[in-house]
């Protein structure tokens, strides 16, 4: 075992963070949520997809960014370059692309009066143009949005004045995961969960493993190393500039189920993708503000799950979950992947129920603060980073 069991290690590693209770008001205040919109979601880089969703020229996807009150069109141009635009027509502001994804043969047309744009966002055709007054088509392209691509993940930034590059923004995360072969993994499944909970409440509930032996006593009690065989302990914690990662070590005494054991044996993949950039056996990277990259080591091939938490309102969030595995090359592998997926899925359903229960509890204002133990340090850090962006919350009465 590599994991050290000494108490209160992380406060010693990061003493500036403090150890006191954390206010819950920022999770339930509608006024604070409006400030988060402006100071976090309209300023930070946001993951909106992966480039492998649009491998061909002319392919595009649309991402509704309700929290930023806009819809974003991400499109691969005829020149192969991937660009992002506000999904808004230059004529009278109609939504240009009303569906989620597609491919255009070289032009994209607004449904209202058929103003037509090329795959680079330039306005190329206006019906009955002669009847307009001094229209300069060259100035009426789609409004671009800053875009960055890191290891296949597409990010956008709605701060038109911002200058920080995505790579610089990602900082320690980009360094740690540089060169990770995410492109060799294929999306096997996506879940979208509509939850009545604040986005930070949902992230916090995922952002620790203290709860595993308790909340997940039937689904995942003993996956990671346990102190005195009772309490999950972290192997490592790294706080980067605004992002963080915690890591776990697998429990060698983990009680595998009969089907899990059999499929482990039948998994005959030759497609052994290895994520050598990992820190532990399981890493949880929280990419500020609302993305999580979970990396799993597994005997035959490593895999990834991502979360994106999209706030709709102070008490309403869409939790997106995506599973990525090396493409299965035999039936045993395919079934082993489905097994890992279902096992985790049930755990996440337990989590999701808790997100709503916790939010309701906090919204009652019966408690005004939460108390964090040392292994919950990334929750403490996350709330500090939120506060660094938004400012301190004022206590409502």
């Amino acid at each position, binding site marked *: 075992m590599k994991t050290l069991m000494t108490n209160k290690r992380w406060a010693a590693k990061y003493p500036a963070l403090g150890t006191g209770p954390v206010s819950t008001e920022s999770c339930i205040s509608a006024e604070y949520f409006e400030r988060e919109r402006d100071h976090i979601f309209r300023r930070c880089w946001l993951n909106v997809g992966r480039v492998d969703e649009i491998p061909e020229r002319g392919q595009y996807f649309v991402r509704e960014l309700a929290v930023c009150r806009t819809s974003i069109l991400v499109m691969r141009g005829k020149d192969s370059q991937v660009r992002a635009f506000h999904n808004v027509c230059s004529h009278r502001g109609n939504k240009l692309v009303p569906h989620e994804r597609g491919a255009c043969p070289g032009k994209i047309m607004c449904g209202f009066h058929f103003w037509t744009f090329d795959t680079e966002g330039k306005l190329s055709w206006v019906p009955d143009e002669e009847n307009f007054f001094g229209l300069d088509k060259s100035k009426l392209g789609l409004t671009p949005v800053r875009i960055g691509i890191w290891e296949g993940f597409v990010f956008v930034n709605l701060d038109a004045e911002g200058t920080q590059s995505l790579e610089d923004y990602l900082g320690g995360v980009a360094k740690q995961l540089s060169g990770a072969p995410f492109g060799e993994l294929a999306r096997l499944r996506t879940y979208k969960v509509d939850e009545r909970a604040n986005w930070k409440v949902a992230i916090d509930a995922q952002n620790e493993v203290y709860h595993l032996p308790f909340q997940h006593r039937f689904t995942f009690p003993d996956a990671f190393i346990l102190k005195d065989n009772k309490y999950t302990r972290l192997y490592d914690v790294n706080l980067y500039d605004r992002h963080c990662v915690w890591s776990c070590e697998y429990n060698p005494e983990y009680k595998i189920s009969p089907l899990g054991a*059999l499929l482990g044996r*039948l998994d*005959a993949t030759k497609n052994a993708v290895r994520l050598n950039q990992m820190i532990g056996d399981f890493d949880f990277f929280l990419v500020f503000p609302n993305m999580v990259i979970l990396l799993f080591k597994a005997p035959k091939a490593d895999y990834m799950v991502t979360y994106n938490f999209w706030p709709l309102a102070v008490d309403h969030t869409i939790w997106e979950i995506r599973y990525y595995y090396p493409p299965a090359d035999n*039936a045993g592998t395919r*079934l082993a992947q489905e097994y890992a997926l279902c096992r985790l899925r*049930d755990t996440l359903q*337990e989590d999701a129920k808790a997100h709503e229960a916790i939010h309701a509890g906090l919204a009652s204002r019966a408690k005004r603060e939460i108390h964090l133990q040392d292994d919950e340090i990334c929750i403490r850090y996350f709330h500090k980073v939120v506060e660094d962006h938004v400012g301190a919350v004022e206590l409502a009465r």
Partner: protein
Amino acid sequence: MTVATLPEAFKSLMPFMAWALPTERERTIKRLASSMDELNSFYATAMPQLETIVAFLDREPLEQMSAANKPLMNLMLSLVEISNIVELYKRLDKFDGMHPSRFVSYEQHHS
């Protein structure tokens, strides 16, 4: 719709053909509509044959699995779908999570 048939060697699974479902969403709905006895008997019949079935299916590349073999594969995916209940919870009322219908699932690779 005609009920798909299974290779002679796996005929004992014929009573469970309603489980030969291609998407997780369908498998979950079927699981939620089943009694513990139904889950146990499907598991008891399918689990001992899993290894033979995988060897049988792997005679052809997974990507080009013939239509005739897909029901068998989908049955095994359903075995996986029910295994948490049969192996871990052992009762229908033990799992205490959000209702699975609220986990809207998408199979496609592009979402």
